[in-house]
């Protein structure tokens, strides 16, 4: 039984304390909730809340002009362990939060919540905030998607990247028309400036490796349609699935690693098909001019402006605006991992994470989902390994397979314990070790059932050999038995 424990602190600014508190501040309380995954399994969640009032330093920080500054000032005063949450309840009339906004979620692990009158209303709001910032029932169910019976989840809920020890990211520049465009992209600089900070933050989750390539004469699989009204070329939404295939054959992948590959393609359309826009389902051009495919990567179309004079010499030199491009690619990377702002209620204001790419609480979100997924994967793997070994009675289990199994069991137990204590980082690391060990044990090449003969096959081989040999032996045995019996009988007869 997995129990997810979130340590939470609710800090009341003077003037925001609701009238109907059960006990005077400070006090602790526990909220429990059960997330049922399928008929037999469920995940329990526990929010251990510590209600208290502000310290002097926090009050000074909260006296800032805007919520953003308050959040920045509060950051050093907070509990920064992974998985924990701090919520500051500000009075209803406070000017920190703009009109119509009830919750401001910061870049780190805190939120500013507007007081709602009674304790019950406040708790309902706090519950909402806690769910956005840690995990919801649907995010846990999506992580355990292969155990949820079909039909309960829509097929699209299972589209996020699976938890893996590492990911490979490949940036590719596609130039189908090198005669018209010489495209220059400073990919190394862009990776160092924009991508590395995000990947450094995500390095807690997995190892990332980045490479890049330029492909010439790589065309999309679809011919775009010319639209007279906007005098541009359009790719409709339903032709997008067929765009990727011809290109995919030309994209390489590293021969040595087995990690999932995420491809980000930047396509500079040909002179004859410029400008090229992607249309969404309603026919409007997409502002980012990009689309992505779950578990694969994303493609962005980069339009080159027509030259000022029609006699400009070809090829045109194009300097790619890497900040804009990386903004789209990093947003796609977030979406591939499942971090999106879609499900946030409208009265919430989320602070933009800026160049870091993702907020601390979004990282926690990922860690919760991946830890639960890892634990589920380990238990399925070990159960199925046990079933396999039961079925083939005489399989030889090597010592290192046995030690990997023991290690996996110990790690997964430690992960579950750490989760129930609220130590998210330690639990995640333990779950990663458990997954590594269990995969190594399950996929060990020596466990091929073909190599171990069932007993009936052994009989089938040895019987034709030993049966003819056994016939005279058995007959002689019978003769001996008969003789001994006769011998025993005779003395009595002679007397």
């Amino acid at each position: 039984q997995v129990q997810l424990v979130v340590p939470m602190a609710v800090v009341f600014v003077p003037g925001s304390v609701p009238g109907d508190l059960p006990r005077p501040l400070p006090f602790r309380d526990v909220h429990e909730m059960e997330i049922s995954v399928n008929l037999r399994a469920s995940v329990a969640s526990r929010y251990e809340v510590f209600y208290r009032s502000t310290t002097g330093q926090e009050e000074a920080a909260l006296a800032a002009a805007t919520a953003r500054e308050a959040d920045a000032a509060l950051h050093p005063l907070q509990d920064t362990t992974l998985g924990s949450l701090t919520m500051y309840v500000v009075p209803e009339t406070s000017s920190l939060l703009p009109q119509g906004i009830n919750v401001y979620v910061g870049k780190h692990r805190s939120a500013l919540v507007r007081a709602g009158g009674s304790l019950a209303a406040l708790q309902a709001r706090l519950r909402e905030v806690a769910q956005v910032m840690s995990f919801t029932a649907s995010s846990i169910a999506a992580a355990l998607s292969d155990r949820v019976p079909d039909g309960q989840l829509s097929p699209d809920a299972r589209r996020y990247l699976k938890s893996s020890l590492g990911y490979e990211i490949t940036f590719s520049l596609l130039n189908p028309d090198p005669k018209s465009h010489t495209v220059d992209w400073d990919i190394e600089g862009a990776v160092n400036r924009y991508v590395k900070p995000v990947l450094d933050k995500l390095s807690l989750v997995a190892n990332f490796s980045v490479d890049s390539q330029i492909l010439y004469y790589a065309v999309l699989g679809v011919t775009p349609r010319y639209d007279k009204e906007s005098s541009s070329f359009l790719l409709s939404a339903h032709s997008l699935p067929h765009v990727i295939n011809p290109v995919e054959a030309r994209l390489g992948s590293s021969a040595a690693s087995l990690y999932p590959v995420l491809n980000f393609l930047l396509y500079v359309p040909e002179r004859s098909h410029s400008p090229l826009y992607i249309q969404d389902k309603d026919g409007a051009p997409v502002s980012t001019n990009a689309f992505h495919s779950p578990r694969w990567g994303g493609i962005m179309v980069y339009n080159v402006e027509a030259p000022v004079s029609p006699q400009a010499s070809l090829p045109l030199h194009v300097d790619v605006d890497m900040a804009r491009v990386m903004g789209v690619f990093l947003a796609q990377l977030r979406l591939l991992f499942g971090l999106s702002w879609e499900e946030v209620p409208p009265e919430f204001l989320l602070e933009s994470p800026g160049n870091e790419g993702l907020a601390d609480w979004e990282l926690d979100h990922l860690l919760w989902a991946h830890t639960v997924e890892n634990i589920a994967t380990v238990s399925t793997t070990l159960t199925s390994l046990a079933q396999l070994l039961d079925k083939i009675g005489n399989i030889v289990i090597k010592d290192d397979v046995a030690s990997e199994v023991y290690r996996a069991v110990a790690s997964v137990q430690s992960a579950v314990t750490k989760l129930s204590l609220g130590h998210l980082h330690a639990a995640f690391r333990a779950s990663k070790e458990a997954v590594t060990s269990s995969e190594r044990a399950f996929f060990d090449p020596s466990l091929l059932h073909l190599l171990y003969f069932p007993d009936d096959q052994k009989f089938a081989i040895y019987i034709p050999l030993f049966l003819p040999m056994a016939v005279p032996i058995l007959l002689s045995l019978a003769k001996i038995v008969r003789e001994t019996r006769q011998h025993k009988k005779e003395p009595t007869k002679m007397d």
Partner: protein
Amino acid sequence: FQDQAEQFLRSGHTNNWAVLVCTSRFWFNYRHVANTLSVYRSVKRLGIPDSHIVLMLADDMACNPRNPKPATVFSHKNMELNVYGDDVEVDYRSYEVTVENFLRVLTGRIPPSTPRSKRLLSDDRSNILIYMTGHGGNGFLKFQDSEEITNVELADAFEQMWQKRRYNELLFIIDTCQGASMYERFYSPNIMALASSQVGEDSLSHQPDLGIGVHLMDRYTFYVLEFLEEIHPASQTNMNDLFQVCPKSLCVSTPGHRTDLFQRDPQNVLITDFFGSVRKVEITTETLSLDRDVAGSESKLPEEELATEPLKYAEQLPVAQIIHQKPKQKDWHPPGGFILGLWALIIMVFFKTYGIKHMKHVF
């Protein structure tokens, strides 16, 4: 609402894999290689890249010394269609196509030194097409004229795949004699199977080519290839049409199929769900606004290296150590009960029958 209904009928896969196996060797089994290569060609044409195809050919027909048209494998007589093409990528060739390697590919229990192209790196959102052809019988398929895979082993391998969620849906097509016996024992969910003939029937070959001297294709795969040539990546043809391919009048054998383990209705399963690679796509509506003026972290070059003396090649190889290594002693285990009992029986009977007086000569 229409969108939601469409969603539930669609498959939930995000990538496609294909494992195409030809199990026979020798020149007169040209048609099996041509079968496999035609399916390979269709699958590539419809979008599955080579990195997602595991092609296993047990013999090389294109460069076989008996091939009068080298570097080609034809599927039509009068050499209309060369299925070998320019960019075929064979992953397991010749003697590497064994039952063990096939099962290793399916279950993933591969030695760590295997390159990426020889692995089936599918996940729980992969639709896999498995096509097998060769000589088969009731409940088995012959590999390389020396070993066979039984339907029980195949069913167990699929169950191992399901346990580890290595597939979302699986389409199994087999073109051998008595092919339907191979899918009788499947018990894992989400498997659909097609076979070229029922138990007790033989699958027949299609047409010989007098120029090449062998039969070029098997009937079932020939008509499947004709059917697939009309499919393009956007087509909406479903599995029910594939079940109608090659009726008894054309095929002489009765093709069979099995859909009871499959969760969706075959009516809603598109051919491109398995043979092509139509990806799910979402429009990106969000973007991050990045601050341009940030100084990036310089790429860290490994500047500090421990100064070591350069090793000469001969020093790196401790030849003396290697050649004088004794073979590792195998641990001695006492003989098992069965052997002991057998010997005790034999000795006892021997001495009882021939008399105890021989004992003193032995000891």
